């Protein structure tokens, strides 16, 4: 120990010297550290992270070793066996062990599960600086001021090698993570790399070790097990620390020369690569980061420095005011570091791990590395949306911090700390989602937060001026607005609103009205989560969750001991949130509980039913399925949905003390009853809920006096005499029982009680019972037997029991007491009972707890329904309140009236002012004059309807534009139409349907807007499309179907109307393609055929007397081009008509034709066959018809006579119906539109025909 004072190190001197320089601050960027946990203690000299659990060991200068849970912030254990400072400490990778080495020259191996030191390794002759377990062999390496490094086997508990060569204190030694190397640093200004492969070869069995131990002395100097491979010289002061790179052949060292040096090695040599300068004092420790390409160093200059491993430039510096740093630790797997200093230690992170994300409906956008990713909650598929800027490497923590998304514009705002707070605006191209390769130049700007406040507006916080800039998607400032409170961050709060955060409160600010809509005192809010309906908001602080409504009226506050990480609202209005290690829920009334534990922190993005969507720290999307039963159950209770509660009790596994306590506390003991097995608790709950049946059952099970007594009390309270009696019986409480019988008037039982008392020889009880019963003789007897003869005598004589009185008097002799005089003796007699409630109802057997339970639940539900009814009543009361309010309103209105009157008075005053005003008004008058003189109003433009006409030669478009005469001229020219009357309604509808009406400015004339046809998303504005028409081809198609249907059903006039309707619409139809034009033309023919046929058939039905004509018309009808079913009907009709007229030959022809169609209707076929049979017998016609089916013909549309092929005829230019030549110049009787034989250019119904 004394040696300490004789230490010749130069470094030590510098140390004390520079203590005074530490206060100097250098003009370097000062950043807040992301501190996760901090302890206050004696100087921390050694640190070690547990590889799996959130634990860290800190060894102190005071000799104590502390085991901390840095996540929970709790001290788990302390180990105090070293004498003097403990400088080295290290966890074993897999075993519950750690090793420590101290200034007492001792290396101790501890089992933290057993809370004790397992053994001590002795051998070093001076302070031990560091100790470390090997990652796979049972070895420990230790460095000591005795200038040696030793390797120990902790299983055999022996030293297996001593590494000599350093000629000053060895400040640190550590194994290589993979290879058989050890690196050490010494105050002799060197770093040494040792090869220990030979050590490995002599595989360490305990026997070997003992052997080795015997050789030790020879090994001590120039040993062969471990040889110096390289000596790294370059530091010009003592080296305090050296460490291997986890994967690369690199070494980093820190020394009293204030430098950090980087070394590289290969198989044969090692050399200095670079020097990192910047520390102002001795560098005490330096390490490579386990995951990132950075170097972390700390120093007695009270700073920690972060260096870029490749560029070797300083990235960041963290300073403390008063504490020198001594030690660093890097977590082997997680992104967490620790540093020990003069007054404790800190656990910290270099970079935030929360991925920036934004949720919108079913989509999640989040930033990962240099990509903006898109995730679809419903399909659970993820893809890349676009490439974003690469996070800068000049400083740390430059990755996106927040994201804001505008779904309609598909735009994303990404905020980061770059340049002290800035944003980037990207618009995601619609087609790029899924490709993700598009990279675009973002629009950028400065500002500590930026969020979308409307579809195409975002707000950027300008902290300096405490204002927000409202910008459009072009990144141009549209508006500026001051903020009502000093704001350091803004969040979304509905369209046009901002949630402004200041240190201790949040406000919701309406940007347009410039009004504060809500204001709430909260701890420093970190995250804001709105419910889906935007009615509720959760404000997340480090340890607090505040839930408020959209006006920031506080609903509830929750405190958490563990840090709150994220949250999301479920569909029922329950807020689900995560802390570092739990998923929890918060009900609307503030009740909260744990849903499950978490191994690693997650960031929740959405809750959907039982599924929680989240992002982890690696930026991967995950789903977690949770058991929502508990909180849904509690929510149902809260909402008084007892049917739901009941079904949940029946169907799910809800249990546990917590649930019972909750139910009890929330006033639902009757519900809690169903979770409890323990009889005592059941009894208690039953009493609480007044469920006397269950209480009795439990009391029977428990069967002790106290419970019976309490049951009796409750039963008495409820007036359940039977159970009171039972309880008293069970406790053998005869006095109470008697009194109960008395008040119940159960005299029979009372007399039994008398007997019982007699049997028990309980005189007082006997007397009481006798008294209650009013049994005087008994009373006298009791008194007599008890030896109270005078009393017995008085009783007897007063009650007029003369015989007994005399007998007693004689027995008393002289001592006969005098009877009271002057008083009317009137003794109390118990009143006769009105009713007798003396049944014993309770000994019915319980059907079983659960049945009973559900019964009672049922009852509970009924009760609750009653309560609900109460609720209604409450509403009734509310109604009364409303009435009150209305009254209030009335008074308000009255007041308003008064105010109005006052206003009028004021306005009376204004008049005076008005008189004074004119001179002021004069000034703008000049400009008024100017306006009328300079302004030239533009000439009116061309109405859209006019543009339509100019372009078009389609009649329908002219009609829509209201130019009926040109429309008619077109129709006349194209189709020979002369009769427009049937088209009138079509014209008017087309015209009416061509414009929509927009109420624009109040009281100004409404704006009529031309509706155009064939709109699509990419149509360019101001280019006029043709008018939208109210008739289209598909409507006609439907009409055709209806026409067919009516024909089939035999509704001929209806069918005719429909087909004519088609013919009347077609002239005003417009279709797009040529193909459709052909279809339209086809439709004309179909309709024409039907119209003609139906007209003939209707005509036929009208003719009653002319059989020949009837047959002819029926025959012609079969030659119209009809659908097969209709043709069959026509044939059948013709067949019947002809058969009836005995024109068998013709009829057989129809029958044959009918059979040729393969009629599906069996009756039709049968009838046809019958006709054929009949005709075969007599193949003649009774009457001659103007009908020759062998000769093809068409029927004249007006005269209904056949025009056989080769005969002359004229046709309708529109519907193509044929007519006999005499009809030329007449209006077509089929379509009723065109003139037969008129000249016409043909149907024009599509722009494609014109092009």
């Amino acid at each position, binding site marked *: 120990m004394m040696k300490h004072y004789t230490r010749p190190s130069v470094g030590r001197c510098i140390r004390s010297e520079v203590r005074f320089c530490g206060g100097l601050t250098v003009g370097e960027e000062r950043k807040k550290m992301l501190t996760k946990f901090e302890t206050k203690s004696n100087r921390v000299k050694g640190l070690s992270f547990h590889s799996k659990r959130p634990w860290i060991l800190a060894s102190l200068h005071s000799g104590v070793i502390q085991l901390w849970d840095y996540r929970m912030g709790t001290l788990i254990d302390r180990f105090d066996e070293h004498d003097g400072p403990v400088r080295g400490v290290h966890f074993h990778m897999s075993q519950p062990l750690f090793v420590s080495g101290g200034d007492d020259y001792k290396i101790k191996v501890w089992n933290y599960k057993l809370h004790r030191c397992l053994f001590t390794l002795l051998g070093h002759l001076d302070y031990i600086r560091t100790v470390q377990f090997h990652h796979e062999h049972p070895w420990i390496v230790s460095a000591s001021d005795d200038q040696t490094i030793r390797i120990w086997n902790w299983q055999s508990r022996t030293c297996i090698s001593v590494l000599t060569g350093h000629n000053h204190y060895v400040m640190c030694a550590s194994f290589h993570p993979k290879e058989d190397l050890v690196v050490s640093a010494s105050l002799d200004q060197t770093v040494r790399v040792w090869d220990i492969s030979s050590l490995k070869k002599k595989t360490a069995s305990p026997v070997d070790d003992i052997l080795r131990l015997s050789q030790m002395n020879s090994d001590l100097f120039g040993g062969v097990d471990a040889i110096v491979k390289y000596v790294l010289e370059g530091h010009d002061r003592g080296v305090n620390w050296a460490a291997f790179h986890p994967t690369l052949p690199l070494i980093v060292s820190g020394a009293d020369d204030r430098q950090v040096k980087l070394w590289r090695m290969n198989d044969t040599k090692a050399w200095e690569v670079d020097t990192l300068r910047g520390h102002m004092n001795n560098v005490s420790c330096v390490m490579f980061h386990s995951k990132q390409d950075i170097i972390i160093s700390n120093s007695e200059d009270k700073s920690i420095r972060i260096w870029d491993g490749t560029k070797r430039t300083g990235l960041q510096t963290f300073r403390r005011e008063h504490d020198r740093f001594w030690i660093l630790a890097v977590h082997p797997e997680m992104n967490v570091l620790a540093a020990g200093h003069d007054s404790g230690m800190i656990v910290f992170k270099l970079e935030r791990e929360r991925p920036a994300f934004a949720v919108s409906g079913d989509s999640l956008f989040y930033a990962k590395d240099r990509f903006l990713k898109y995730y679809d909650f419903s399909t659970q598929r993820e893809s890349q949306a676009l490439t974003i800027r690469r996070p800068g490497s000049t400083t740390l923590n430059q990755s996106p911090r927040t994201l804001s998304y505008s779904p309609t514009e598909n735009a994303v705002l990404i905020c980061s700390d770059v340049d002290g707070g800035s944003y980037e605006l990207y618009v995601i191209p619609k087609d790029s989602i899924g490709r993700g390769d598009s990279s675009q130049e973002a629009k950028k700007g400065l500002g500590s937060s930026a969020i979308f406040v409307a579809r195409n507006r975002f707000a950027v916080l300008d902290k300096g001026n405490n204002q927000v800039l409202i910008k459009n998607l072009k990144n141009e400032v549209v508006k500026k607005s001051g903020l009502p409170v000093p704001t350091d961050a803004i969040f979304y709060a509905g369209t046009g609103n901002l949630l402004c955060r200041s240190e201790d409160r949040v406000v919701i600010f309406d940007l347009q009205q410039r009004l504060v809509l809500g204001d709430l005192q909260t701890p420093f809010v970190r995250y804001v989560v709105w419910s889906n309906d935007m009615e509720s908001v959760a404000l997340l602080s480090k340890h607090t969750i505040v839930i408020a409504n959209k006006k920031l009226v506080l609903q509830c506050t929750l405190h958490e001991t563990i840090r709150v990480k994220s949250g999301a609202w479920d569909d029922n209005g329950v807020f689900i949130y995560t802390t570092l290690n739990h998923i929890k829920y918060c009900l609307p009334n503030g009740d909260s509980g744990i849903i499950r534990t978490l191994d690693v922190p997650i960031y929740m993005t959405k809750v959907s039913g039982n599924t929680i969507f989240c992002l982890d720290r690696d930026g991967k999307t995950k789903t977690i399925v949770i058991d929502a039963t508990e909180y849904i159950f509690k929510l149902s209770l809260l909402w008084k949905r007892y049917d739901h509660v009941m079904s949940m009790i029946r169907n799910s596994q809800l249990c546990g003390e917590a649930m019972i306590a909750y139910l009890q506390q929330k006033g639902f003991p009757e519900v809690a009853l169903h979770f409890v097995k323990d009889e005592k608790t059941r009894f208690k709950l039953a009493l609480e809920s007044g469920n006397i049946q269950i209480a009795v059952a439990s009391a029977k099970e428990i069967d002790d006096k106290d419970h019976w007594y309490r049951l009796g009390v409750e039963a008495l309270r409820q007036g359940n005499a039977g159970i009171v009696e039972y309880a008293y019986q069970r406790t053998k409480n005869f006095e109470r029982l008697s009194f109960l019988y008395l008040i119940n008037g159960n005299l029979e039982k009372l007399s039994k009680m008398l007997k019982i008392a007699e049997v028990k020889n309980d005189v007082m009880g006997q007397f009481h019972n006798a008294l209650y019963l009013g049994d005087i003789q008994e009373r006298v007897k009791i008194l007599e037997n008890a030896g109270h003869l005078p009393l017995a005598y008085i009783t007897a004589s007063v009650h007029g029991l003369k015989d007994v009185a005399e007998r007693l008097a004689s027995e008393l002799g002289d001592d006969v007491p005098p009877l009271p005089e002057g008083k009317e003796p009137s003794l109390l007699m118990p009143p006769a009972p009105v009713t007798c409630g003396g049944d014993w109802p309770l000994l019915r057997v319980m059907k079983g707890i659960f049945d009973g339970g559900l019964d009672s639940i049922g009852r509970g539900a009924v009760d609750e329904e009653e309560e609900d009814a109460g609720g209604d009543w409450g509403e009734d009361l509310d109604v009364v309140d409303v009435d009150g309010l209305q009254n209030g309103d009335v008074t308000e209105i009255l007041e308003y009236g008064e105010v109005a009157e006052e206003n009028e008075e004021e306005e009376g005053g204004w008049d005076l002012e008005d008189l004074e005003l004119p001179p002021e008004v004069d000034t703008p008058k000049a400009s008024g004059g100017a306006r009328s003189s300079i302004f030239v109003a533009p000439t009116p433009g061309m109405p859209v309807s006019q543009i339509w006409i100019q372009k078009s030669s389609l009649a329908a478009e002219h009609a829509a534009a209201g130019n009926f005469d040109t429309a008619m001229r077109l129709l006349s020219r194209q189709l020979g139409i002369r009769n427009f009357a049937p088209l009138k309604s079509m014209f008017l509808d087309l015209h009416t349907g061509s414009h929509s009406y927009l109420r624009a400015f109040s009281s*100004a004339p409404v704006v009529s807007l031309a509706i155009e046809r064939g709109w699509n998303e990419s149509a360019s504005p101001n280019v006029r499309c043709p008018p939208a028409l109210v008739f289209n081809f598909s409507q006609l198609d439907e009409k055709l179907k209806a026409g067919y249907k009516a024909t089939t059903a035999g509704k001929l006039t209806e069918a005719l109307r429909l087909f004519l309707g088609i013919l009347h619409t077609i002239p005003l139809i417009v279709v797009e393609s040529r193909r459709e034009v052909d279809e339209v033309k086809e439709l004309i023919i179909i309709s024409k055929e039907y119209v003609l046929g139906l007209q003939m058939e209707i005509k036929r039905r009208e003719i009653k007397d002319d059989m020949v004509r009837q047959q002819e018309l029926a025959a012609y009808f079969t030659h119209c081009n009809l659908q097969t079913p209709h043709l069959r009907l026509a044939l059948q009709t013709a067949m019947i008509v002809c058969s009836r007229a005995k024109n068998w030959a013709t009829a057989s022809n129809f029958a044959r034709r009918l059979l040729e169609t393969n009629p599906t209707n069996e009756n039709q076929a049968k009838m046809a066959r019958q006709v054929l049979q009949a005709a075969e017998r007599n193949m003649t016609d009774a009457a001659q018809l103007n009908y020759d089916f062998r000769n093809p013909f068409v029927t004249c549309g007006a005269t209904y006579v056949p025009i056989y092929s080769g005969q002359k005829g004229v046709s309708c230019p529109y519907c193509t119906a044929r007519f006999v030549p005499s009809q030329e110049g007449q209006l077509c009787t089929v379509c009723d539109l065109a003139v037969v034989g008129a000249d016409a250019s043909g149907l024009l119904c599509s722009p494609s025909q014109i092009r």
Partner: protein
Amino acid sequence: MAAPDHLFNLRNNFYLGSYQAAINNSDLPNLSPDDAIERDCIVYRSYIALSSYQLVINEIDSSAATPLQAVKLLAQYLSNPHEKESTIASLKEWLADPAIGNNATLRLIAGIVFMHEEDYIEALKHTNTGGTMELHALNVQIFIKMHRSDYAEKQLRVMQQIDEDHTLTQLANAWLNLAVCGSKIQEAYLIFQDFSEKYPMTGLILNGKAVCCMHMGNFDEAETLLLEALNKDAKDPETLANLVVCSLHLGKPSSRYLSQLKLAHPEHILVKRAASAEDSFERAVQSVA
């Protein structure tokens, strides 16, 4: 921080067609005298929009401020078509009065009246210098009526420079978008959609959305929106008129809406157009025959 805009909600209600809400919520405390007059103007104009002309004529007496007098004039003009000549005469007389002729409200009313007279040049004479958002918005409408969307766009630019997020700017933008058609219809739809998300649904907003849908060829959605609007106000002229149009396109019967419209609003442009169309049909038949 600028002072809160006390009349914001009132104006918004008025512009977006919640006239009753505007009237009901007009009792605002602590208004400056100017604000109070503006408040009264909006309230009375809301009554006018609800066709309660007589109430306005009765309540505004001769001592009221110029803007209110102008509003009264509008009520008189709209209530009594037979005496509009005298109303217009007094309007012209006031406009010529240098003391009050430059009053923004008076000019606005003049613009509205001359628009009804379809004398757009005269209307523009009084409104073109703008000065208030309302005047600019009216200008936009006048230019749209004149089929001069280029001029309307210029006016809109001016409005956007003043306050791009102003309700009237947004509305005027939607009007213009509808007038120029094409891809702009979507933007118009989004504007109405924004309104419907931010403010209580009104017939005006629903009609706006419906008109957009119709112009995009989506008559089914338009019908749904219009029926919703009809639920709110069964007599709203634009709702009925648009329902007529929409039903025609859907091939559904439209006559009931048309007769309702004819009964309730015989002066509506659709009724007038239908009547004149019938005339012109007869005339055309004659001329073609």
